[in-house]
């Protein structure tokens, strides 16, 4: 397992804590910080949808969970791309080893 943490500064601060398996499956993700989401539980649903994702498509699908959610202080598109990037970096380093 590989733990990756990333602090992202938008209007608010977001921390991504991602746990990746040896074969680059997202086993856990926590999105924390001082941002706002309406409704709040959309973030928990998003985290839950991202768990077990191992592809860009899966993450993109998961972020559709936020379609009816107002998020303040976060660039959601960038956040999604960061998660995808973490996954792709994992795959690259897996292929290189």
């Amino acid at each position, binding site marked *: 397992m590989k733990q990756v943490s990333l602090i992202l500064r938008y209007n608010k601060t977001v921390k991504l804590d991602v746990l990746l398996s040896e074969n680059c499956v997202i086993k856990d993700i926590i999105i924390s910080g*001082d941002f706002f989401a309406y409704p*709040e539980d959309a973030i928990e649903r998003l985290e839950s949808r991202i768990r077990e994702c191992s592809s860009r498509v899966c993450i993109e699908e998961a972020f559709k969970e936020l379609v009816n959610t107002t998020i303040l202080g976060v660039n959601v598109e960038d956040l999604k791309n960061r998660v995808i990037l973490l996954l792709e970096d994992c795959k690259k380093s897996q292929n290189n080893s």
Partner: protein
Amino acid sequence: MNSAVFPVLVLKLRVILDLDGRDVYWQMALDEALLLMRTRGEVPNTLRLYRFKPSAVTIGYFQKISEAVNLEFLNENNIPYTRRITGGGSVYHDTNGEVTYSIVLPVEGVLTDVLESYRVICSGLVHALRKLGAPAEFIPVNDVVVYGRKISGSAQTRRSGYLLQHGTLMYATNLDVLEKTLIAPREKLESKGVKSIRERVITLRDIIGQVDLNTITNSLVEGFSRALNAEVYYDDLSERELNMASELVDKYRDYKWIFKR
């Protein structure tokens, strides 16, 4: 349309001055109780002004507690802490230096858009501070600043067509203690162009000198009344509200809730 014929509706706003102070678990439970009861039509639109006794810390709904506050310092100094149902950042609530407001209102008109609702409600704080002689301004999403330094922060949640917004006004907060209790990520401080939390905040006392709490609460009531075009009336908490808060208070003491993230 002619407003003389179709007058602008004036919001009725019940005001509760609840300034004796109670602990952080109770205060958070009571705020949630007021929101829940408002959604059920059991209480009217309400503005509550209150204090935390003893001084305490709250963290935002999405924050990781170990990264938002100095747990070692809080535990060593018996400063209680809990998680809010609202987002935003960690806050130090000084019994003798900070007054908190909470307000429950229907999500309608200018309050429909979340960002705009922060601006409208926070303008109550801006009016109050300006009346007291502090040149305050609202900085989106949720801050009120004076001379570029934060004097007030607010946070809002919404349930079934109603909103709860609560927030602070630091009139004489002990900033030495505040700095020891809270943790701000380096990235956040850098983005604000400061090196420490201390450099980012200010109290009313720093700006206009000592002000008594009565004067501050009167200004707040007037400020919110103006911001919301509301007609205010004073009231006390009802037995039912106190009972509902009693039912919710254990949630805020529960480590599962506090350490959820």
